[in-house]
């Protein structure tokens, strides 16, 4: 019996010869367990060695195979050919510049991640002999969800405001920022607040909510962004009042 095949349409772009991207169809044999990533690897190995795409872990943890599949931002490794009627379209992540074929330019995204200072800025400096920075499970549960981000970029491809204004910090970077602000060991909230409240900050968001809908790790970046609108508004109106002493977890 001949194996079932499915048409996979890939948006190709080869900067040295193409003026703009074009669609190319490939016939790919598939079974119940054929992921889109497996299909792309089949194309590269058996049909067309010139196809470029990023991938690594095959288990939704490395965050490198984010693509527009069937028009929606998804990880190629956890999206399966069986779930599509007819042709499957595969395109580079929306709102990112296309470097080549399915590979996007991540530089601006990485710069935004760095910009939010995603590291612990200790609330109190301690020497090694003072012991560890301790944290209770309750304190950890406040930020745990936002620490699950794998930087796959799906939320940026889901966010029209990122597409309309490339300056916008975007959902992923703000979720990462929020993760550190919520950490009881961290004392950097005030410094990060400048970024939240700036023209490139949270008020570019119009609460579309699609970023959270497509997130493969249930991080809920939309919530991180919108909670910080209230934090920013509080800072806007009360910034001239004397600050209360920081206590407990830093909201």
């Amino acid at each position, binding site marked *: 019996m001949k194996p079932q095949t499915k048409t996979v349409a890939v948006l190709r*772009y080869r*900067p*040295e010869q193409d003026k*703009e*991207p074009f669609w190319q169809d490939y016939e790919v044999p598939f079974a119940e367990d054929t992921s889109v990533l497996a299909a792309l690897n089949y194309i590269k190995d058996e049909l067309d060695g010139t196809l470029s795409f990023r991938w690594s872990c095959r288990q939704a943890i490395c965050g490198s195979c984010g693509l527009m599949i069937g*028009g*929606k931002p998804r990880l190629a490794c956890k999206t399966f050919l069986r779930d599509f009627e007819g042709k499957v379209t595969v395109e580079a992540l*929306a709102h990112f*510049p*296309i*470097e080549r074929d399915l590979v996007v*330019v991540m530089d601006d995204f990485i710069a935004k991640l760095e910009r939010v200072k995603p590291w612990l800025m200790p609330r109190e400096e301690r020497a090694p002999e003072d012991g560890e920075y301790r944290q209770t*499970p*309750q304190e950890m*549960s406040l930020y745990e*969800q936002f620490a699950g981000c794998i930087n796959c970029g799906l939320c940026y491809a889901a966010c*029209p405001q990122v*597409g*309309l204004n490339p300056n916008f910090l975007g959902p992923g970077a703000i979720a990462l920022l929020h993760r550190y602000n919520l950490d009881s060991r961290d004392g950097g909230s005030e410094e990060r607040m400048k970024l939240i409240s700036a023209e490139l900050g949270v008020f570019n968001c*119009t*609460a*579309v*909510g*699609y970023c*959270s*809908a497509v997130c493969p790790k249930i991080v*809920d970046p*939309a*919530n991180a962004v*919108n*909670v910080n609108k*209230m934090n920013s508004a509080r800072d806007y109106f009360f910034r001239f009042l004397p600050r209360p002493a920081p206590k407990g977890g830093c909201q």
Partner: protein
Amino acid sequence: MSARRPYIRPMARWYLRDPFFIEYMAHEGTAVFVWLFALELLAGLVCLALGEAAWNGFLAWLDWLPAQIANGLVLLMLLYHGITWFLILPRTIPPVRIGHARLPGWVLSAAGMMAMIAASAVLATGAWLLARGGL
């Protein structure tokens, strides 16, 4: 010289790209009807300030069939605004926790819609009592 030539795709008509975006534009569009209703209320307030004849003119407007149809549309749009406002609420308000567990989004949405029904009932009862001359 670098051979890099990154291609930036256009954003034209992005809102038709995904059903999720079409729904977003639809609920953002309710703002036009909220604006129109605010204008109608403002006209009513001005008429009320101008005296009885002007107010009766406003009442005649409310009875006019085209105005009734328009208000019917405004009613539907404000209902849609209310429902979508509470559907997105779990994304926009700080997480509500009971102990360690974060309440699921649908609980917050449902609570919001219950509050909407309760507040509307209170408002209708208030209007009814007011018309009866006592509150």
